[in-house]
């Protein structure tokens, strides 16, 4: 019996590792170990007033802080029956796209790409392939510019509040943003060329189920409250309020992240899941991108998530530009947030964070103080699927060379773009 251990996963957010036991040709225990400290923010937030909740729970994770903020606001607004303005809807979608651009660019170019050419990180990659790193930094900066302009800050946005925004962006700010987005659009082809030039990563094949927000008309990360699970060609649809169907979570001794299954099966969330569940959005230019990247859906290869992120990155820049142009055409009003009148009740919001489904569910008392908070994050939802794919990766590695196994395991782990700080914050047992 021997054990392959990836002690501390590098180039991911947070603290986790992988342990695999090998007995001859048989793969024994496979663990995705999460040893990030538990901050226990969900119980700590109890008793706070509704306007304090998003700024606290945003701190679950920096890379997804916009998604946490906006999902938190939506859950609170759902609990109180608040209807936000169409301008707020549009600005929030733009903010979401900004985060997705930043997060995907960071992950694709700085965290995942070095593996394909055997570099330890982006600095080393930049010495030999500066164009790849500079492209990533350019797009990352564009995503941050959107978040700074609309959210007031690139990390832990401050401008999005219950009922709307503190201050809407000025026309001048939007014109500057439009200029940057038009420049960003010029990078689309370069992104596709670069992704198409990556060496193949074909060492894990394993069918799984996919779960994503179902949005028949638009490819929205924020609008909609139906989740679709696609499993072996079978489709299941359920409403946000029934999110526990998906998060039948189990605490595990080796991990501060609980594990989720759907009808007993692990499933994947994130870019690949979004494209698999909503294939109708893949028309025109995006269909061409899909073809150039040789991405066939559904796929059994988790590494394809990197390609799916690249496709989304291109779409995000395009959609962000559409929104900015619409805002400039229609004119941005200097509107205040709509009034928020607390009432006792529960509100749940499901959105698509860059890494996949994100759920916030809150219960408030009549004074608007939170009495219970549940947060389910994409990395927690993916944990069981990651272990399934880790197992398969080792099984497929016929050489049984520990260094090769360890490298492949890390590549598969990174393909999920795990956010380990996020994964530690989990639903409370009931």
């Amino acid at each position, binding site marked *: 019996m021997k054990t392959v251990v990836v002690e501390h996963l*590098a180039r991911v957010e947070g603290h986790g590792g992988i342990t695999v036991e090998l007995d001859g040709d048989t793969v024994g225990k496979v663990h995705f170990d999460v040893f990030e400290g538990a901050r226990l923010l969900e119980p700590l937030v109890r008793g706070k007033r509704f306007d304090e909740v998003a700024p606290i729970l945003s701190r679950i994770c920096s890379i997804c802080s916009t998604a946490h903020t906006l999902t938190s606001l939506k859950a609170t607004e759902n609990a109180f029956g608040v209807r936000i303005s169409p301008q707020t809807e549009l600005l929030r979608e733009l903010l979401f796209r900004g985060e997705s651009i930043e997060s995907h660019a960071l992950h694709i170019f700085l965290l995942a790409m070095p593996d394909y050419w055997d570099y330890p990180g982006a600095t080393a990659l930049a010495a030999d392939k500066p164009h790849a790193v500079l492209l990533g930094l350019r797009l990352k900066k564009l995503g941050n510019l959107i978040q700074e302009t609309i959210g007031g800050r690139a990390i832990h946005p401050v401008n999005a509040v219950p009922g709307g925004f503190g201050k809407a962006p000025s026309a001048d700010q939007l014109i500057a943003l439009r200029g940057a987005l038009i420049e960003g659009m010029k990078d689309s082809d370069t992104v596709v060329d670069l992704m198409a030039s990556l060496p193949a990563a074909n060492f894990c094949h394993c069918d799984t189920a996919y779960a994503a927000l179902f949005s028949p008309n638009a490819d929205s990360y924020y609008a909609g409250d139906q989740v679709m699970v696609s499993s072996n060609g079978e489709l299941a649809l359920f409403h946000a309020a029934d999110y526990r169907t998906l998060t039948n979570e189990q605490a595990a001794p080796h991990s501060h992240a609980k594990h989720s299954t759907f009808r007993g099966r692990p499933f994947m969330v994130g870019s690949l899941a979004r494209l698999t569940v909503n294939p109708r959005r893949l028309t025109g230019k995006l269909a061409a991108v899909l073809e150039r990247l040789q991405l066939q859906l559904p796929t059994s290869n988790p590494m394809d998530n990197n390609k799916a992120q690249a496709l989304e990155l291109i779409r995000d820049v395009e959609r962000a530009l559409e929104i900015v142009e619409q805002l400039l055409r229609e004119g941005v009003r200097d509107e205040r947030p709509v009034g928020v009148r607390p009432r006792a009740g529960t509100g749940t919001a499901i959105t698509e964070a860059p890494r996949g489904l994100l759920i916030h569910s809150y219960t408030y008392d009549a004074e608007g103080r939170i009495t219970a908070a549940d947060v389910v994050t994409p990395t927690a939802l993916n944990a069981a699927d990651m272990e399934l794919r880790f197992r398969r990766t080792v099984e497929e590695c016929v050489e049984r060379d520990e260094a090769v196994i360890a490298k492949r395991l890390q590549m598969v782990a990174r393909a999920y773009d795990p956010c380990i700080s996020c994964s530690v914050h989990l639903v409370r047992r009931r």
Partner: protein
Amino acid sequence: MSKPSVGIFGLTGCAGDQLAILNCEDQLLDLVSLIDVRDFLMASSENDAACPLDLALVEGAVLTRRDADRLLAVRKRAKLLVALGTCAVWGGVAAMDRGTDRGKLLAEVYGEMGLGYDSEPARALHEVVKVDLKITGCPIEKDHFLAAIANLLNGDAPVYPSYPVCTECRMLENNCLLIERGELCCGPVTAAGCAARCPNLRVPCVGCRGPAGDANPASLLAVLEEKGIDRQGIAARLRTFAPQGVAQ
């Protein structure tokens, strides 16, 4: 002159301060030409986990024995240790109610199994090791980080404002959310350096940078009580990001 060796570390937190460093997109490649980043797990898979360091940048709070051990090891390696961000400087959101029974909270989230987890009440870095420089903020401001590196490369100690957010807010000529609208704004007691980001967007300050050195909390309490905001609520609000943040 050889480049100073640098390590960048994250304890328990959101990784926002490491991300703030990676968000210096325009300066990043220049930065790595001036300093020798030897240990940065979030950005590289090849790290020297034992080399002596001229400079260690540490974000996050100490929430596990593992965190404490890592911090002690980093301290031993480093000539200068910089606490990066509100969690490292003050304890941050995980420290907001340090008095709460941790076992109870763990059991509530994880069930019985939670009781076996490595978990301690959140501590700021200076409660565990000697800290040479503190850069606060949730997250840190990119400019503060870059200025710190530039200063340290020149052998200077960076200086950050000790005055509160209010000073910056008044200089921007904003209407006062506290006096004019009676909103619970933590600007009067929170460390400046953010250009009054929130009140400048008509959003009350939540105190994410921790307490200002030159604040007058007694006066804030008096103003808030006059506005009908209860003392307990104010205290809880001021404790959100820094457990020691509340006025005695």
